[in-house]
């Protein structure tokens, strides 16, 4: 469901950076913690990109696993369920190292060949 909001946010970010260049692909890094359903995001992205310079652009999704750090015992782990309390020392002082990102990492654009302006 939130894939529609995310697709729109991704589109607007990409559009702002694309200017008037046609975009052929968009790379998105999505942390697992953001619970993005890839097929759903692709579907909505295709819909919202219609009639924009991103129409037909490929959505390249890079999924990032959740990685946590316990600040008390310095242990690191990759939880396979949302466990944010340290499994070793039970501390609640835990930082999220990865898995929360929702970033437009790159766009692939079509550029016109630079015209040669040098003197002949």
């Amino acid at each position, binding site marked *: 469901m939130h894939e529609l909001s995310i697709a729109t946010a991704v589109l607007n*970010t990409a559009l702002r950076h694309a200017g008037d260049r046609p975009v052929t692909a968009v790379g998105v890094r999505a942390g697992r*913690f953001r619970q993005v359903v890839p097929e759903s995001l692709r579907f909505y992205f295709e819909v919202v990109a219609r009639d924009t310079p991103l129409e037909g652009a490929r959505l390249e999704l890079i999924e990032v696993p959740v990685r946590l750090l316990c600040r008390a015992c310095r242990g690191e782990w990759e939880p396979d369920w949302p466990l944010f309390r340290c499994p070793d020392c039970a501390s609640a002082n835990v930082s999220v190292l990865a898995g929360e990102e929702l970033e437009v990492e790159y766009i692939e654009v079509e550029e016109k060949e630079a015209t040669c302006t040098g003197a002949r």
Partner: protein
Amino acid sequence: MHRSKVRIVEDALDANNTIARANRADFDCHGVTVLNLMSAPGAGKTTLLERLLAEPLEGIRVGVLEGDVQGSYDSDRLAALHIPVTQLNTDPGFGAECHLDANMVRSALPSLPLAEIDLLVVENVGNLVCPAEFRVGEDARVMVCAVTEGEDKPLKYPLMFRTCEVVVINKIDLLDHLDFELDRFLYNLDAVHPGVEQMLVSARTGEGVEQVRDWLLRLTARTGVPA
């Protein structure tokens, strides 16, 4: 024509966050503390507000911004409390969004009586997913979770449960009639958001609501910039 890859690395929600910061600056400038109140549909946000605001909040002037997909049912209920209530429908012009975002709240700023209130409660659209992603310029986020929703909710919606500093566990008057295992819910909540402040209440009977009231007073004292 040739293809080239342009590196961007920008949070997809940057645009929203920028507007949220602008909202926040406007709220700060008027000394208004803002609370983003979120839940699944029907968890009891409006009922809790009716309870909380039935009596004056120790001189704190409260206003409510009601986010709803359609209609003004909740605003009509709160209007009985004689406090300023502003309705913000996400349907017209916003494509029936399932959450409030910073821009929608920005559009409502001119109709909010910021000079006359100290605390603005934003009742978000009932949804446990999208509202967690979109900041609107709030100082604090609170969610209401009813015991009728089951023990697994924190595990299913970790982003929402993690993003809130208080979880109000509502409808405890129904505990005797349900097979809801409170301990299991609290265990799951602790796994997802260790140490989060939790309050057991019944907005129906009023039990426990004074905890939320006291917390609101602390919040306003903590964030309120004297106007």
